[in-house]
């Protein structure tokens, strides 16, 4: 009996660094696969509401990537701002412009071929240069960044960009009200 409990306790030992690395890589692979498939479905699906829901999957996967990279505050902000606010805004946009769209197949297919060429070129060039520059650069962050560090950085070194962002958000708020308002 004691032996059983001892083995249970030993099972709760902190993982060795090798086990953590394997787990991180497995999670990275899973999340990356789901993100890429959802992104492909998002840009190809006919139904716009489904596209918005696939975008949710991609954004949630990106939040998972931020957690893997030890950036917890960015991950939480991603979920709050993107999934909580921006997706709802998109769904409202889709709802308010519903039934307004028909497709013309011919032109779409012609542009399709060029678009595939352009995107494959972009990914080939950027991936090639990444592989060339950071051949086997390891990410070995010792501890995740804390929210206190980010707060210190925002309100210290980056205080002027932070104030500029607040003015930008105010300008965007007023601008979108002015643009979308019905003229009397």
């Amino acid at each position, binding site marked *: 009996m004691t032996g059983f409990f001892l083995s249970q306790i030993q099972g709760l030992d902190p993982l060795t660094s090798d086990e953590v690395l394997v787990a991180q890589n497995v999670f*990275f692979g899973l999340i990356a696969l789901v993100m*890429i498939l959802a992104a492909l479905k*998002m*840009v190809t699906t006919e139904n*716009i509401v489904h*596209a918005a829901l696939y*975008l949710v999957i*991609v954004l949630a996967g990106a939040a998972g*990537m*931020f957690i*893997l*990279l030890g*950036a917890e*505050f*960015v991950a939480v*902000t*991603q979920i709050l*701002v*993107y999934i909580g606010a*921006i997706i709802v*805004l*998109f769904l409202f*946009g*889709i709802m*308010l*412009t519903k039934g*307004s*769209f028909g497709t013309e197949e011919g032109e779409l297919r012609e*542009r*399709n071929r060029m*678009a*595939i060429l*352009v*995107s494959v070129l*972009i*990914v080939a060039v*950027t991936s090639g240069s*990444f592989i060339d520059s*950071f051949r*086997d*650069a*390891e*990410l070995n*962050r010792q501890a995740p*960044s804390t929210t206190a*560090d*980010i707060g210190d*950085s*925002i309100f210290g070194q*980056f205080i002027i960009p932070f104030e500029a*962002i607040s003015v*930008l*958000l105010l*300008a*965007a708020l007023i*601008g*979108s*009200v002015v*643009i*979308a308002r019905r003229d009397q």
Partner: protein
Amino acid sequence: MLLNQFLILSAVLFCIGVYGVLTRRNGVMVLMSIELILNSVNINLVAFAAFREAIPGEVFALFVIAVAAAEVGVGLAMVLLLYRNRRNIDLAGIDSMKG
């Protein structure tokens, strides 16, 4: 984990977003593809922040998120204005400012 796996993932997502911007003709879909592009850039920024063990990359990612929120607000207002004036949001039909 290698730095490269995050960078290549973000490159793939970026190019999927570019494909969406180039092919979709619905204004809302184009805005959503732009969100995909901005998000892949964020993954890149946070990956480099983790690589250098530095905070500024993450702060910059937060700024990008804020700018993306502002951009979506203005962009959707423009799409709504378009819908009110033309009764559709087909971007291929918008060429009234063509020279």
